């Protein structure tokens, strides 16, 4: 944790704050929000997206979901996304938490949190990060349904969402 004498040294404190966490544990939006905007009086807007596990997908009920990822690459990919968001948008800081392992309906899966001076840039950066994450971060979901286990299919709509930002995604639609 950042010790108290660092609190007035924003840049150093920011460097010490973890931007990306891949974890099995749950997260607390209030705690993360407080940490991201701590001591930063420039902040006038905090935008958060929380993704949660639904109990239905593609017409079937979902009992549980197993999240697999590529350790090492996942963190690198999300760090690169945050760097890109900081370049594109007038934001101060961003934080991404993604859970892995076994999750149940109602559980939180993902948190994207962004701070800026005004709301517009935070909203945009938050959406940009989620669109990016959906198609470029190496996670895979496997659902447990009454008729057995199944890997979740990627969606064309997610590739299209990233194209809005002028970034080509061939997660699903690219040549095999």
């Amino acid at each position, binding site marked *: 944790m950042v010790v108290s004498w660092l609190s007035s040294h924003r840049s150093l404190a920011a460097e010490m704050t973890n931007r990306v966490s891949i974890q099995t544990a749950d997260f607390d939006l209030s705690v993360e929000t407080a940490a991201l905007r701590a001591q930063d009086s420039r902040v006038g807007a905090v935008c958060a997206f929380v*993704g949660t596990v639904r109990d239905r997908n593609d017409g079937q009920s979902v009992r549980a979901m197993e999240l697999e990822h590529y350790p090492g690459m996942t963190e690198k990919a999300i760090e690169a996304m945050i760097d890109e968001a900081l370049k594109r948008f007038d934001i101060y800081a961003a934080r991404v938490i993604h859970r892995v392992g076994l999750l149940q309906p109602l559980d939180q899966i993902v948190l994207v949190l962004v701070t800026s001076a005004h709301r517009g840039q935070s909203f945009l950066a938050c959406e940009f990060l989620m669109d990016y994450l959906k198609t470029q971060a190496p996670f895979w979901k496997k659902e447990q349904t009454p008729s057995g286990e199944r890997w979740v299919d990627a969606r064309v709509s997610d590739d299209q969402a990233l194209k809005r930002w002028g970034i080509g995604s061939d997660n699903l639609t*690219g040549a095999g």
Partner: protein
Amino acid sequence: MKVNIKYFAAIREGLGKSGEQVQTDATTLAMLRDELIARGGAYAEVLSRGRAVRVALNQVMCKEELQLVDGCELAFFPPVTGG
């Protein structure tokens, strides 16, 4: 050269392994994938050209035309579905 391969999700399950080290004369990711497909069996199925397979070289998603380098880490996986 020697390359370290990792497999994830449905590809890992289909092959029954999460990775392996291979000795290869392939110079690109595409050539290596073809070598693996030529092994037949589960390899031919999960890495089939008819399937959407994504590749990463040294932990960065890339095109299959990229050159392999000795000791590199590559990965084959299905389209990602996080978030």
